């Protein structure tokens, strides 16, 4: 059929399954998607420019609002770069606290994804079960930081307040109860033939394409590349905990689903170890605490990469010796993951296009920045 007879249809920016404000310009031949072109930028607020105008410590709140479903991963990513640039060391205790929080955030982010993926396929029930579990995590975040989602818990030189006994008890409860609940959610999806038929063998992403498009995180690991920044370039104390990287060689939707579920189990394993190993010590480096008039200054350029729930989250900060960063550049993993969508969703049905875009785990706070 000639391309002039294709129907052009906009999915989004306001659409029930576009996970925010993604707009997909699709050319349809009946039910078959012939071409799609993602259009982004509807949530663009230029966080990089805002970061140039703010002090090093204050930038953190803009990072919270990037991956808003797993905010502490973003904080860890920014602080990895900022602390190197400002030459501020952090104590062992802070490192362990950050690992715990980053892994709990990863679970929280994956739970949102799992629920939303059920919704994408028309399955309403797992969504609520996922959010009930996530609510427990948000309660823990509230206990340590005072707020639920955009926690703003960490700061240059440590964390704002020490982790409390109550929070540790809550985390221990969560670690004890979560595996069973996770299994329930897993079974809800995996023991369903229709779910398997919607995911198995659909949206196959091969290794070379994935690497070339800069795809990272669970998507890359589902395509058979064993690349996890936590292992490749261990930051914080990831070299002192014992965990595995789930890898699948199929590269289809199902592989991505399985990898993410296994990642939640591994994160839980890390939290379990970290809770036992967490040492005593100061929760804040007083060197970072300057009075209001004297601010921290940084010079040089630093790139730090961390493994967020979506992939390799990198922050590149250039300092010119001033109190504000000269240039901040954020490597958004989801942006690269999204850029591979036109390759994946070629000559597939509309329903498959939705199923594929669901496995990319898009969060628009991070893509548009």
């Amino acid at each position: 059929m000639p391309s002039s007879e294709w129907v052009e249809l906009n999915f989004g920016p306001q659409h029930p399954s576009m996970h925010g404000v993604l707009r997909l310009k699709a050319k349809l031949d009946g039910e078959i998607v012939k071409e799609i072109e993602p259009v982004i930028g509807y949530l663009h607020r230029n966080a990089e420019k805002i970061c140039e105008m703010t002090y090093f410590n204050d930038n953190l709140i803009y990072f919270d609002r990037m991956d808003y479903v797993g905010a502490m991963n973003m904080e860890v990513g920014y602080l990895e770069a900022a602390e190197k640039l400002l030459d501020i060391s952090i104590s062992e205790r802070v490192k362990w606290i950050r690992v715990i929080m980053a892994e709990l955030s990863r679970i929280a982010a994956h739970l949102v994804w799992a629920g939303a993926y059920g919704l994408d396929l028309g399955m309403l029930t797992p969504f609520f079960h996922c959010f009930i579990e996530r609510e427990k995590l948000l309660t823990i975040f509230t206990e340590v930081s005072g707020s639920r989602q955009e926690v703003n818990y960490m700061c240059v030189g440590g964390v704002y307040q020490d982790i409390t006994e109550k929070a540790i008890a809550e985390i221990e409860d969560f670690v004890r109860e979560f595996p069973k609940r996770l299994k329930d959610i897993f079974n809800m999806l995996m023991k369903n033939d229709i779910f398997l038929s919607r995911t198995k063998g659909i949206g196959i992403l091969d290794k070379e394409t994935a690497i070339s498009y800069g795809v990272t995180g669970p998507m890359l690991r589902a395509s058979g590349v064993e690349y996890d920044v936590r292992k490749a370039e261990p930051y914080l104390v990831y070299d002192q905990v014992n965990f595995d990287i789930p890898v699948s060689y199929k590269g289809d939707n199902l592989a991505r689903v399985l990898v993410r579920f296994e990642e939640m189990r591994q994160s839980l394993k890390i939290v379990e170890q970290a809770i036992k190993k967490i040492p005593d010590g100061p929760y804040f480096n007083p060197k970072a605490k300057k009075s209001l008039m004297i601010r921290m200054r940084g010079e040089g350029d630093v790139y730090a990469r961390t493994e967020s729930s979506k992939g390799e989250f990198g922050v590149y900060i250039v300092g010119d010796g001033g109190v504000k960063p000269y240039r901040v550049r954020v490597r958004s993993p989801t942006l690269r993951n999204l850029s591979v969508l036109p390759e994946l969703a070629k000559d597939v049905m509309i329903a498959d296009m939705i199923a594929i875009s669901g496995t990319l785990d898009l969060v628009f706070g991070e893509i548009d920045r």
Partner: protein
Amino acid sequence: MNILLRLQELFSPLGHLASYILAYIFESLFLVIFVTISLIVMIYVFRKYMARIQQRIGPNRVGKFGLLQLIADALKLVGKENILPKNRDDLPYKLAPAIVFVSLVLAFTILPYGDFFYLGSFTVTHSEVTIVLLFGIIAIMPIGEVLAGVSSANKYALLGALRAVAKDVSFEIPMMLSVLAIVMMASARTPSSLSLESILSSEFLPYGILEPIGLFVFFISMVARASYTPFDLGESDSELVSGHSTEYSGMRFGMFYMGMFGSIFLGSLIVSILYLGGPSGPVESSLGFIWLIIKAAILVLISFTVWLSMPRIRIDKFINFGWKYLIPIAMINLILAGIITLGWGL
């Protein structure tokens, strides 16, 4: 003795014709009220049931246990502004929700409900060919959906309408084939085998026991027709926003919504009448209506469970399922029914 005749007796001082007309009007009014109330109850039960499955509480603010929630929602829908798309095809656009809802209510007038104490049966239409009437009316409902999709000048709605057509074409056939099997079997025992009432009165075992394959095929077709989640292709909300009802708001949308729940209820009633013995219960009594409602309610709950635990099937696999599996199975069922009928004839 059914309600119609009792009403006619009541109005008989007004003359023969007038009393019949009045009786029909009141009876129809009864039926509309019955349908509306049962829909409201159903939607309430659905929301509570869904909430329990999803570990929530469900409606609990308006009235005791949220019993008045549905009334509040209905008032909200009525009070809402009707937003009309600019390029709509006006008449079909406005007609479509009415077609869906009216044909739904019409279908309810035909079903044999069984006795309810001294009141008798609710059934309005008595005819020798009620099966033909019933499935004719059922076939009208999708026309409303298609009209809605085509007339609202929206690509999502159009795609939804196309899907609705594809779905109906591939699932009416196995549905009718399995009904045919029942008619065939009933014809061995009753001369008027196209009438639902005589099918019911002539059966010695529920047809669901005699032909479980037919029950299976028919129930699946009814699920597909009511279009809820494994088969809600016409309005798959994560793909086509809301399918054929994308451009509808206010009470017009409410009619589609009620049409969907009504289809579930209607489907459950038809399945229990044709396959599960309808109004006949384990003990002989004048409680046929209650038995029917209990059977239908169980089927409705099964439908809700399916709805809430399944993802949506892809359109091509769905059509394949209809043509490649259901129709051959329905054919086999037909042959089996023929063999059983022959056995009776001997």
